[in-house]
């Protein structure tokens, strides 16, 4: 019986009789990319779409995001789904600050990305005003397929991230621009 189970492809490297050699970067990148634990920060309708993404039909677990983490300590990727009011901004920032490195952020939907239709005094005009964002998912709200695509983009980022990226001065400068120690 033919199996249609798709396995993760091995990274580039040297194979031979009984051995496989590759760089540490690629190995760790592969491991990180396929075990991204999401931390959902859902505040409105995009959160409902994210629930569908987590459900059996779209099944975010296929991408290694098996366990939605409701504590930032073990989470790898913060999914901000929904409108973030200005009053919520410090809460979001605190949750981001308490995540363990390495951490990625996906802004799901128009509101999280840019404020969306809520061009008003009380709504944060995009979460990139308070925390650095890696992937923006457009849509109002986006389809679960789009959210999966966003997660796959983060997988690509994780796969290709250098082990030293988070110690580089560029990254430090990025965090400093957000007043993050």
């Amino acid at each position, binding site marked *: 019986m033919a199996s249609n189970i798709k396995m993760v492809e091995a990274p580039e490297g040297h194979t031979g009789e009984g051995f496989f050699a590759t760089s*540490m970067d690629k190995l760790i990148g592969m491991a990180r990319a396929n075990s991204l634990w999401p931390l959902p920060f859902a505040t409105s309708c995009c959160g409902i779409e994210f629930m569908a993404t987590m459900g059996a039909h779209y099944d975010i677990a296929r991408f290694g995001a098996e366990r939605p983490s409701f504590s930032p300590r073990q989470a790898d990727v913060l999914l901000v789904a929904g409108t973030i009011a200005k009053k919520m901004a410090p809460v979001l920032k605190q949750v981001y*600050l*308490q995540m*363990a*490195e390495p951490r990625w952020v996906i802004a799901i939907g128009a509101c999280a990305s840019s404020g969306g239709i809520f061009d008003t005094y009380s709504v944060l005009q995009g979460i990139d005003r308070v925390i650095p964002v890696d992937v923006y998912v457009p849509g109002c709200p986006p389809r679960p397929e789009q959210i999966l695509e966003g997660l796959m983009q983060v997988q690509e980022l994780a796969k290709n991230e250098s082990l030293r*990226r*988070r110690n580089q001065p560029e990254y430090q400068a990025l965090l400093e621009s957000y007043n*993050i120690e």
Partner: protein
Amino acid sequence: MLTHMESTTYLPSDYLPVVIQLGLALAFIVGTMIVTHMIGPNRKSEKKDEPFESGIPVQGDARTPISIKYFLIAIVFVLFDVEVIFLYPWAVNFKSLGMTGFIEMILFMGLLLAGFYYIIRKGVLKWE
């Protein structure tokens, strides 16, 4: 028969593979823990080390004294909870246990209710 008996007696040196296995297992665990702490990026700040309270500022201390009444109520609840566990199988086998079972259960319930009467008179269930 004798040879078979002899083959089951081990010398201390025969346990060497087990010791090696144990050592390897420990070395793997300790080594992985050390290596992951070395290679992974980490970041420490005062805000990060705060307890996680869903992002809102921490208020007060979690380790405050709690009134003894809560524990008494909890224990009384457990007592009656366990009593129901005994009641169910007794009720299922009511016919086959017959008169003896009935008397035993009356005794059991009588003791329990005597205790219940005692704690009510002691004022355990009085909240204020």
